[in-house]
């Protein structure tokens, strides 16, 4: 029962959902929508599991004075701060336990939760994201070396698109006569993006799509069980 019943549930739910796609009649038509809201609710509860794991792992690190243990105190403190102020005064238009905290927001300009969100969290997020500008440069420098035909194609496509995508490309080939306008770098870049790139992306989409279809079917049929933990 601990193993068979979950497999049976997966099978039933999966089959019903597939069939319901073809049946507009009530209650089938609304089923997938309703079940996706269920998923949101279940994962809403599940998030507690993660938070507890975060707590446990960090407390253990501090307790056993692992390397850099002082930093994990910071993790716990920032977590507790964010959760506390969030619950006390809420965020945006949602009130917290103590209501909207108008007096605090009038001093800070925002609710405390939103203040930390905009002035700390958002900057951390944007900066972490912007590291990609540097990494894309270092990855290009390291990897775009024409060793084989494949790597040459990779390299040439990348350089042409990079050139075509900036004012630089416009500038470099704007002298070309009209009859050769297809060699104008922005046009070359657009050509590569529209045709061969789309072809490549489509092939990946179709392959991956079939992979997902196969996996879904295996899961519904109970062949693929890794999500339950075991074989």
């Amino acid at each position, binding site marked *: 029962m601990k193993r068979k019943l979950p497999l049976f549930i997966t099978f039933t739910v999966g089959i019903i959902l597939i069939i319901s796609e073809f049946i507009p009649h009530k209650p089938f038509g609304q089923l997938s929508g309703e079940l996706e809201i269920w998923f949101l609710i279940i994962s809403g509860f599940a998030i507690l599991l993660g938070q507890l794991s975060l707590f446990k792992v960090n407390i253990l690190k501090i307790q056993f004075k692992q390397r850099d243990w002082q930093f994990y105190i910071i993790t716990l403190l920032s977590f507790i701060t964010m959760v506390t102020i969030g619950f006390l005064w809420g965020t945006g238009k949602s009130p917290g336990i103590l209501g909207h905290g108008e007096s605090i927001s009038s001093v800070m300009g925002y609710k405390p939760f939103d203040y930390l969100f905009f002035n700390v969290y958002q900057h951390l997020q944007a900066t972490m994201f912007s590291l990609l500008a540097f990494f894309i440069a270092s990855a290009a420098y390291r990897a775009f070396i024409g060793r084989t035909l494949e790597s040459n194609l990779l390299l040439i496509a990348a350089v042409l698109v990079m050139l075509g995508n900036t004012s630089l490309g416009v*500038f470099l080939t704007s002298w070309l006569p009209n009859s050769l306008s297809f060699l104008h770098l922005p046009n070359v870049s657009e050509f590569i993006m529209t045709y061969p790139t*789309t072809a490549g992306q489509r092939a990946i989409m179709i392959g991956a799509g079939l992979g997902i279809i196969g996996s879904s079917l295996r899961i519904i049929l109970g062949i693929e069980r890794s999500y339950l933990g075991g074989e």
Partner: protein
Amino acid sequence: MGKSKQIDRRWLFLLIFVGVALPLIFTIGLPIETSKNVQIVYDLVESMPKDSKALISFDYDPASMPELHPMAKALLKHCFDKDINVIFTALWPMGVQMAEDIISQLQDQYPNLQYGVDYVNLGFKAGGMITIQSMGKNFRKVFPEDTNGNKIDELPIMDGINNFNNINFVFSLSAGAPGIKEWVQISHDAYGRPTSGGCTGVSAPAMLPYVNEQKQLTGLLAGLKAAAEYENLLQAPGTATSGMDAQSMAHLIIIIFIIIGNINYWRNKKSDKKGDR
């Protein structure tokens, strides 16, 4: 191998940092040319009669602001210039603030804009695809009121808008999922409304297949470049235009480094061969 054949990548990092910062301070003003997909979007908006209704969905958060914000601003300017009524929605919770921020930036240029008449902010709804699906059925059920708590039945702009049939075109400013893909699947594929979008450069290759013969997407604004092109079409240079100089500089640095990398590789290969002999 012995000695390191590659330059320490931290020099590259420093160069990129400086190379982007300088053009922002001292603008160069390199030329900008319109690409096809941007022109299609521009033409779509241009073809709309006065008082058409546009649904613009803000499906991004602050992380993608550098790319999508200038785009949103240019598109809204165009809509307001053409007297198109704009309905804002958001599939991302932070999208509401994004929309409010743009409006506050545009307020000075369009002092006559009237909330509830020229535009309305219906706010965020969770659920992605399902939410769009229910909007197709009945707008009012999904959004009984706007972000300020006004009943949408009382807002003149929403008069007669019950579902996608009453919307002239849909535009999603999207940084991922839910976003353009979901809109295409419902507002275009299921309801046949002209649907267009603006996305970050990285998701562009995955979105381009939708700009096809069936016009699943009517044009696509992809990344900062598209925003700069749009600003150029409107003849209103903004942050995207100044950013394009910095872009060109950074791209140039990367390309120079790729060339250096290849020269190093071939030189080493030659010297290795000589060594073998």
